[in-house]
């Protein structure tokens, strides 16, 4: 089974599905929804099969496939997945069907074609899978850029208030980063011996100065994508304007491309430059944690609030990556997965709440728990997961990041810990103002607020809740997959974990 071309099939399948859905007649939106949902389930089944076929103690890169594309420039369709990519692919495969299910009625309110909305979601899935599965820098760049197009139309055509502004801002920010990366990609190609193959490039000898410039080109693109402070301003706008499903994918998966790119491209290809820039990157991460959390506290718009929490979480991931320890690195990758699940859930639930109320403003809510108790409960759970309560999955990743960072950089770890307190503040306060307290009389007049979660919505949230709890108690299946890849990455950077000092104490005790 491991000879099956999983990655290329996974990349192409959603695209075919998108074509099928787009060609369905506009008058039968239900058919389009069903086909899109079934197609995303098919992708999920394939991904699960791939997860099973992945050998935990095997090679770092598995499922490698390579087909010639533009031989003149040494460009190939090369796909390969390491543990980190595998986890991200799994996250996409899980989230997309749930998002499709959650967006069942989203497109109808926009007066635009419903099949096209779901086709765009599937195109987005294709590009997201491609970007994580690519092992050729050119191919990666292609997916990285093309990804913008479906997202642009999802936000711009189906979004809410200020969607045009948000869509353009999103596109331009990402494009600017992408073009810096293009310059770096070409530079890498020139100094790396005119090849785009990741494995060949990771062996290339690059002069120190050049490597630093190239690192900067890649890092800028990824920092905008992630987004890290101070390149984050597009995310609250985009997240606030996007339809809830698209927003869940935007922060749940799309933004992970940035952190994934740093792990896959910046660190192994430019190890010296990574170490040289690490203090700056750590500083950006820490500032992001505190600054975004403070802004989140002050938000009155639910979707913008969730977007800001994401920026804070990306600060944690950044810190975990640039701490250069296996623990912190594993924590960061685990965080990428858990954040996708937890924030994805939070965005979807918030979306359900907003769809009922017809407003995203926190001040329009109040005591909603009395009307929709189950929904309020799920929101509370999603909030707790997002603030990394022990017993939920994000706790483990946050904890790993912090202890992994503490061994190499105590001040950063200490400041980052403050972020947890702020997280509690923004989540609990948001939950309190929307679902707790006295009932806002205006709410009872809104028809939507009298309907609690439907069966469809329960099906959407149940798997995410189950996964968050499961991984909160038993993350081993995932960490087993991540660990070897992170170790290899840290070896590429040339950092070994500091020897635990407790060892000597134990020996003295003997």
């Amino acid at each position: 089974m491991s000879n099956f071309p999983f990655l290329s099939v996974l990349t192409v399948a959603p695209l075919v599905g998108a074509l099928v859905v787009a060609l369905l007649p506009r008058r039968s939106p239900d058919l389009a929804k069903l086909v899109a949902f079934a197609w995303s389930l098919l992708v999920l089944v394939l991904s699960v099969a791939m997860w099973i076929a992945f050998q935990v103690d095997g090679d770092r890169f598995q499922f490698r496939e390579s087909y010639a594309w533009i031989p003149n420039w040494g460009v190939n369709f090369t796909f390969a997945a390491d543990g980190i990519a595998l986890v991200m692919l799994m996250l996409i495969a899980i989230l997309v069907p749930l998002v499709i299910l959650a967006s069942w009625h989203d497109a109808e309110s926009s007066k635009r074609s419903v099949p096209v909305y779901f086709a765009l979601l599937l195109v987005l899935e294709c590009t997201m899978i491609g970007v994580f599965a690519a092992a050729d820098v050119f191919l990666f760049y292609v997916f990285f850029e093309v990804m913008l197009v479906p997202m642009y139309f999802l936000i711009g055509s189906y979004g809410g208030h200020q969607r045009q502004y948000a869509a353009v801002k999103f596109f331009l920010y990402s494009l600017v980063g992408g073009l810096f990366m293009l310059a770096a990609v070409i530079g890498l190609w020139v100094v790396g011996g005119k090849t785009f193959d990741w494995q060949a490039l990771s062996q290339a000898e690059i002069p120190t100065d050049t490597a630093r410039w190239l690192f900067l080109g890649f890092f800028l693109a990824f920092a905008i994508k992630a987004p890290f402070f101070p390149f984050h301003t597009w995310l609250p706008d985009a997240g606030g304007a996007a339809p809830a499903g698209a927003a869940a994918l935007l922060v749940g998966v799309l933004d992970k491309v940035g952190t994934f790119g740093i792990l896959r491209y910046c660190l192994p290809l430019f190890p010296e430059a990574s170490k040289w820039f690490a203090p700056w990157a750590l500083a950006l991460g820490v500032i992001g944690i505190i600054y975004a959390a403070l802004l989140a506290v002050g938000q009155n718009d639910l979707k913008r609030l969730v977007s800001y929490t994401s920026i804070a979480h990306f600060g944690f991931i950044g810190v975990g990556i640039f701490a250069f320890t296996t623990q912190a690195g594993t924590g960061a990758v685990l965080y990428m997965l858990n954040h996708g699940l937890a924030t994805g859930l939070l965005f979807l639930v918030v979306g359900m709440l907003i769809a009922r109320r017809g407003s995203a403003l926190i001040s329009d809510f109040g005591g909603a728990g009395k009307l929709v108790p189950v929904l309020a409960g799920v929101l509370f759970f999603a909030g707790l997961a997002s603030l990394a309560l022990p017993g939920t999955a994000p706790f483990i990743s946050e904890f790993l990041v912090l202890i992994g960072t503490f061994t190499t950089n105590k001040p950063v770890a200490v400041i980052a810990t403050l972020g947890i307190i702020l997280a509690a503040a923004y989540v609990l306060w948001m939950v309190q103002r929307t679902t707790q307290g006295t009932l806002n009389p205006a709410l009872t007049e809104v028809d939507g607020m009298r309907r609690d979660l439907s069966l469809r919505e329960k099906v959407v949230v149940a798997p995410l809740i189950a996964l968050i709890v499961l991984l909160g108690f038993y993350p081993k299946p995932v960490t087993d997959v991540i660990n070897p890849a992170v170790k290899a990455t840290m070896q590429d950077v040339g950092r070994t974990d500091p020897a635990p000092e407790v060892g000597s104490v134990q020996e003295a005790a003997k």
Partner: protein
Amino acid sequence: MTELKLPSIDYAALAPILIMLGAALVGVLVEAFVPRRLRNPVQLLLALVAVLAALTMVILNADDRLITAGHAIAVDGPTLFLQGAILILAAMALLLIGERAVERGGAFVAHAAVTAESVDDRRQAAGAGGTTEVYPLTTFAIGGMLIFVAANDLLTMFISLEVFSLPLYLLCALARRRRLLSQEAALKYFMLGAYASAFFLFGVALVYGFTSGIPNRAAGVDFATVHAAVAESSSSQVLLFAGMALLAIGLLFKAAAAPFHVWTPDVYQGAPTPVTGFMAACTKVAAFGALLRVFHVAFSGAAWDFTPVLGAVAVLTMLIGAVLAVTQTDIKRLLAYSSIANAGYLLVGVLAPSKDGLSGTMFYLVAYGFSVIAAFAVVTLVRDADGEATHLSRWAGLGRRSPFFAAIFTFILLAFAGIPLTSGFTSKFAIFAPALDANQAWLVIAGVLTSMVLAFPYLRVVVMMWLSEPGDATPTVAVPGALTSAALVIGVLATLVLGVAPAPLLDLANGAAEFVR
């Protein structure tokens, strides 16, 4: 007295040029002898057949590497590649020029001598069949361009410059609607073009003076002589530099590079849109073909001297094109500034003195030509009762009115913005990679930065079309006739194919990327 010897002429190698010029002459006769109502189909057919015949000859000559007609014409890889490119793009432009289904009588004025804005003018605008002299004029221009990219000495180059410029000046003046704008454009183009030609001619004279100063060598303006003179010259090079600068001014004017670009927006806006498409694609190919030949063949020995200057011109061109494109409110002017910026990118390719640089530039020319003709083809379709609706505000909500054409135009704009899987991306790569390889990182960085700026106006049009609600002023998209459809399909497909599978054309360009001297 030395005996005059007739130079040997390889007629097969010259066949594409001869066919086009011959067809133009036949076209003039058609005007005289064929009844009016038959002229349009006959002329169109004649021009298209001539282009296809010339293209066939180019393909048959594909392996030629020779200099003929007494060192006047060089038929080598770049010549054949660029001639092929000009012919294919010209065929697409001819399809647009021949379109009569979109507007009654076509895009051209019926009686150019009628006073603009008069009663007669309104009558002719309402229906009479457009003038058919446009076909011989276009054919002459194509013939001139074919010589321009093949010229092996500066005088031939100057003559062919005039041969293709004069018909273009005329063509610009022949718009059916907004004739004052059209005539103004033609006059502007003519005045400035004549000025640029004079610069070019003066440059030729100075270079001749420079070569005559080299001892023990015959003076001349063919590229081999100039090349040898540059290599051997040890004394003052003032004449060389002055000559090079003046030649560059003449060529950069045609290429629409800053600071010789000011005519471009006015002319692109005023000229009939099919002619604008023709100029944007074919003139660009011809001008850069000549630039490549002059700087890679004749003056390659002085690369150290001209690279910084031309580099500065390239940066300035990219910057002006990109920044001013942001402020445009008319789609044709926007495309004109985008064309200026693209001239800057092409100059980056010209300044990469390697085989890859040459092939990359040629690839870019072809890729850009296809996209830009398709773009202008869409512009001809978006119209209301007064003709084309070119003001950007009128394009609001076009995506709702006619999603198909809006989607096509969006795709072309994404290509211009350099999004992967379009030819815009592969061609940018084809130019930036050799430039970086040649240690011209500053040009690449300037290119990348201006690409970011340039993305904004393109995106604004996309936003306009898709994300705005259509208003009363939103024009409809005319149903394109078979000719426009064909041009559009070719352009869009080429944009897609060259973005997804550029390898065959890259191979072709690579195989052709060597000049003979």
